[in-house]
């Protein structure tokens, strides 16, 4: 394992240099707002690594909220009339600097869905493959962070190419993949850290993990039959407060649902893929007018069953949640996935 030591004095110039080879994304403070968001960094802009959690996860860098899939024209004089053409896309190397380990782990969960032997979502996979993930270890996890209960954690390396650990006047950069190594070289960060430094990472990791107070358990959920838990009597209580906004799903790094829409002006148009949410009634509305998930209870149940039961059953590889805590913080009515998970896990099926 290779660890590079980056003096913070060299950080800004390194990031500037790497922009020659990559489109660089990172957290920066939103104008006139108190919070940060992942944005593409122009010349002279360095990622704000002191920023706390971004409200939206960086999922939009790979999976934009609204993305043109095709362009078309209905102009009969055009050779392309009624043909769907993929617009020009920029899949040149890009890097997300300062992504939290759980957000990077989330991409690997989403990949299970968008990159399968039968289907490949080219837009998502091409963007993902073009991306280098430079993670920033979380040294002070928020009170809502329960990432150690999922397949992630504050220093987790899943889905990362480099893990940066902040040590006041320098970073230790753990090289996880070749992609990561290439990125560091392009930034001119080549100073190999000594053994003593490297050991610090494990100490910091342990410290950060110990700080996490929030835990969820889902060890029993897999043993219940889907129908039993689907029909459990707790869903009315869980769903009552929900206003079916899509906040929880929009802020979630693992939520992947989208809707396809055509938009036209005159004879030309674009086919878009837009984020969608299982919380919206329209999500499952059939053209017949029938809606199989017509009530709030059904929609709330779907969200939690998908994350905490169907996904678990289907892949046998943990829940569809990395424990970032965003949905808890931003739900306007405080529906807390940890509480729901506990309720589901401690469910007692009727005999």
């Amino acid at each position, binding site marked *: 394992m290779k660890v590079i030591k980056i003096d913070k004095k060299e950080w800004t110039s390194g990031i500037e240099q790497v922009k020659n080879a990559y489109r660089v994304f990172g957290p920066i403070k939103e104008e006139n707002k108190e919070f940060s968001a992942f944005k593409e960094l122009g010349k002279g802009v360095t990622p704000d690594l002191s920023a706390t959690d971004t409200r939206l996860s960086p999922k939009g860098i790979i999976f934009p*909220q609204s993305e043109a899939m095709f362009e078309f024209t209905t102009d009969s004089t055009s050779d392309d009339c009624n043909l769907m053409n993929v617009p020009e896309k920029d899949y040149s190397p890009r890097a997300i600097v300062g992504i939290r380990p759980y957000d990077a782990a989330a991409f690997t969960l989403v990949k299970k869905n968008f990159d399968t032997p039968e289907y490949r979502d080219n837009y998502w996979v091409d963007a993902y493959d073009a991306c280098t993930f430079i993670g920033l270890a979380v040294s002070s996890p*928020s009170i809502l962070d329960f990432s150690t209960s999922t397949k992630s954690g504050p220093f987790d390396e899943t889905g990362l190419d480099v893990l940066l650990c902040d040590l006041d006047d320098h970073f230790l950069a753990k090289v996880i993949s070749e992609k990561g190594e290439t990125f560091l070289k392009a930034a001119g960060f080549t100073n190999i850290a000594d053994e003593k430094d490297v050991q610090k990472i494990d100490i910091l990791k342990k410290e950060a993990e110990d700080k996490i107070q929030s835990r969820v358990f889902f060890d029993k959920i897999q043993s219940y039959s889907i129908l039993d838990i689907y029909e459990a009597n707790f869903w009315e209580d869980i769903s009552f*407060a929900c*206003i079916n906004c*899509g906040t929880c799903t929009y802020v979630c790094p693992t939520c992947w649902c989208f809707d396809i829409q055509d938009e036209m002006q005159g004879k030309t148009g674009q086919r878009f893929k837009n984020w969608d949410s299982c919380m919206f009634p329209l999500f499952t509305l059939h053209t017949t007018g029938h809606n199989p998930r017509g009530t709030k209870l059904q929609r709330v149940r779907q969200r939690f069953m998908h994350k905490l039961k169907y996904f678990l059953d289907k892949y046998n590889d943990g829940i569809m949640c990395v424990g970032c805590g965003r949905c808890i913080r931003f739900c*306007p009515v*405080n529906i807390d996935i940890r*509480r729901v998970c506990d309720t589901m896990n401690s469910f007692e099926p009727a005999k």
Partner: protein
Amino acid sequence: MTGYIAKIKKISKQILDEGTVDMVIGFRKGTLALMNEPCFAKTSKAVDDFVWDGNCGINLANYLTSRKEKIGIIAKGCDSRNIITHIIENKIDRDQLFIIGVPCKGMLDRHLLSAKFPDEILNVSESEDAVIIKGADYEETLPRKEVLQENCSVCIHRNPVIYDELAADLVEEQADLDRFEAVRKIEALNAEDKWQYFEDLLATCIRCYACRNACPLCYCPTCFVDESKPQWVGKGQDTTDIRTFHFLRAFHDAGRCTDCGACVRACPMGIDVRMFTKKLEKDCFESFGWEAGLSLDARPPLDTFNPDDPNDFIL
């Protein structure tokens, strides 16, 4: 105001035990500071979970829409006005309701407080005039009136307008305030600055629709933004579509909005969407002397016609 809870519980238990209602809608303690969760109790045991404090800013009238049961509901001033609006608009029957009125002293502004204290707020306690904010390594006492939601600081209907029983003595209403100061500031801008103001206001909108869904007025079975046959509004992040949503929603709430602030409270991006509805509230007040939800007997200005209606706003 935190002292109300004993009485709220007592009334709730009584109306459940006596069979006056099938359920009572209230709040239970949230899992985060500054947050409580709307909930229902169908048994007097479940009432034990109820709480009441300055974090009950979600408008509970929103949970009444088209329900069939007999319902007990805890209502602050604004909730009670939205209950009246609901009754007038046939979304619930007066006879179905037992309203537990809560004289309100304003709700805490969770956006303002979380911005003010970037280090996680772990605990908030309240007294009559002060709020004590505690984090892992800080504690600060702030005057209550400085940390209220903006709609609460300009509220002149703190006492419930309609109720079956009160949870406490009525409070003194605020007087001598300029309720529309913020609107006037925007009105005074020139066209260009005004446009910029709204651009900036909506810049971070993600169209999650939490503002709409938290609003008791937004009960249409299919909202115009969700309509697909025909589709009126694009569903992406085009700024025209985002604006269309906000402008039209605000107009749909004209003469109905009670300035409860639930929309602003709900917005995950902290956008002050009230700035749209507040302007319409002002117009309704100035043109028709109308304030929403004050009486069961008056029809709202937008569903009545009077030959004397002012029409100088027609261009």
